[in-house]
């Protein structure tokens, strides 16, 4: 058996070690696991059956977002374009590319392409795209620089608004619903992917909130989203 000072040191180390290990465990559970800090999805591209490149189509070719996601201004769901949209060009362009084989297959058989969803909020959240687009929330505000993404991923911090807010989690939404003037842009800039907020964003945002009739006081009640 160890004696005296040496044993005291060991006992102390064990005691403080156990206490700090327990505190660390609690910290990990409550600040990490329980709030999705260890969610591997943000920042990681989601593999798709066809490696569709937004970088090429939206960035380099300069297609408007609404060319493919046509319903975004009118419907709750922005929608994924059907094979027909792809084939408006790809009956003529890159007709023998092996990467496009699933698209041609789908065109031939009528079977839709099984795209993998990148952003999926739970079904107890009712999200409406059109209202956000109509009130001046730009695509990049939530989805990040999609025009630079080869394969789409969830931007880990799309608007740099709150380092603690995980993308598409509740705090992320609430931060904007509590102070929309920090993020609102003029409606005509919504689909401009290279729009940068001006120096006087707060002043402009406050004016736009007024002009677009955004009622801030009701925006954080449960029934707005959890219907």
């Amino acid at each position, binding site marked *: 058996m160890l004696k005296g000072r040496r044993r005291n040191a060991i*006992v102390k180390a064990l005691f403080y070690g156990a206490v700090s290990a327990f505190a660390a465990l609690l910290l990990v559970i409550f600040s990490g696991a*329980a709030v*999705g800090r260890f969610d591997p999805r943000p920042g990681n591209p989601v593999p798709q059956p066809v490696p569709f490149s937004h970088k090429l189509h939206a960035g380099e070719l300069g297609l408007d977002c609404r060319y493919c996601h046509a319903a975004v201004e009118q419907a709750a769901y922005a929608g994924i374009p059907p094979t027909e949209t792809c084939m408006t060009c790809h009956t003529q362009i890159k007709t023998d590319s092996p990467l496009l084989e699933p698209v041609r297959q789908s065109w031939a058989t009528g079977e839709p392409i099984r795209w993998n969803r990148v952003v999926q909020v739970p079904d107890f959240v009712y999200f409406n795209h059109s209202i956000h687009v109509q009130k001046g929330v730009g695509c990049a505000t939530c989805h990040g620089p999609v025009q630079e993404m080869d394969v789409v991923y969830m931007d880990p911090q799309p608007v740099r608004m709150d380092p*603690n807010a995980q993308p598409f989690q*509740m*705090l992320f939404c609430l931060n904007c619903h509590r102070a929309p003037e920090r993020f609102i842009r003029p409606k005509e800039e919504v689909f401009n992917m290279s729009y940068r907020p001006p120096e006087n964003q707060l002043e402009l945002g406050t004016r736009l909130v007024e002009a677009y009739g955004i009622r801030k006081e009701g925006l954080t009640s449960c029934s707005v989203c959890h219907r």
Partner: protein
Amino acid sequence: MELPFKPRPASSAPDTQEVLIEGEHTYTSLADKLAAIVENKPPPQWYPVVWIGFLGSLLLLTAAVVTLWKGVGIWGLNQPVAWGFAIMHFVWWIGIGHAGTLISAILVLARQDWRDSLNRITETMTLFAVLAAGLFPILHLGRPENFYWIIPYPNNLGLWPQFKSPLTWDVLAVMTYLTVSTLFLYLGLIPDLALLRERARNPVLRFVYGALSLGWTGSAVHWHRYRAAYVLLAGLATPLVISVHSVVSLDFAYSLIPGWHLTLFPPFFASGAIYSGFAMALTLVIPLRAWYKLEDVITPTHLEWMARILLAAGLGVTYVYVFEFFTGWYSGEPYELGLIKNRVSGPYAPYFWAEMTANVAVLQLLWFPRIRKSVWALFVISIIANVGMWLDRFDIVVMSLNRDFLPSSWQLYFPTFWDWALYIGTLGFYLFGLALFVRFFPPIAIAELLHLLHKKKRHH
């Protein structure tokens, strides 16, 4: 100079203490006797108790797993009676825990020497009763996996608990209560653990007791700080014990249900807690005393004092019963009058009358010194009081819910097998925990009793 009051005769203090330790004891003989409980083999009755407790704990585990697996729908809850056995037993167990804190904290502040040989076992009762109680609020959740949402922590939902709800306060109250009563129990154990460390022959036990006793040497500095900490904790635990059960009572009193919305509830629940806690303490201390031959240190005086507190707390409960009926009648509210009618002649009337018999009628026997001095009578009365308080919880939880404002939502409550299994299971868990504790830790606070013996000798 003439004193304005008559000084007490010097002999009175030793006289009352004399009956707290019977027989001719020296420090050594007393310490030997009390440490022997842990050091020697347990009495034969210990084994069946542990086995019954173990099987009960298995039943609890089964019932808990089945509940978690299938959901609370396997209980007998229905729409008007959405709180049934689980909440009843939560309140019942929390109440039982309160005697321990009363004996160890309130009686310390009141400098009552007779609590010295009772505090350890009742503190243990508190710990296991709170552990048993703590199971119910979690199992009772429809989605128990999300229980931590009621803890206030910064999260990615931007959500916090609703601090206006007494159920949120319950979490804070019960968790604080569990922490403080564990600390109190452990603090009291430290000198005894050091004694067991010194006496242990087995090196493993010596190491375990040595680690648990945190290097206690019994120096004057140790004792000075120990006493200060003990009294401070007692001072903290006293308002805590009153507020914990008051918070539990607010789960009901905060609502608008006739029979629940009653401003008397906080003190009523506190006195009910002391009543049921002392009843359980008597139920457990009497066999413990007989099996471990502890008649020297748990004397008839102790039992009589416990019976007196049982009577006092029970009269508090009786007072509230009377006033519940009086205010119900005095309010003139049809719903309050309906509640009275539902109790005395509704479908659960037999339970109500059994409750009145146990908590009001049988209790009055304790006025008689002959009954208070009879161990058997006390044992039987304490069990009846436990049952009475169980019926009281049934009365509060179920009988107020099954018939309230709208006759279209009147419904009877029938507990299912799993309701009973959970209850009996917690009883088993309680016995199991207590039996194991008594096996490894002294159920009588040795240091406190040596101190008591010292006081007694000094007065002679």
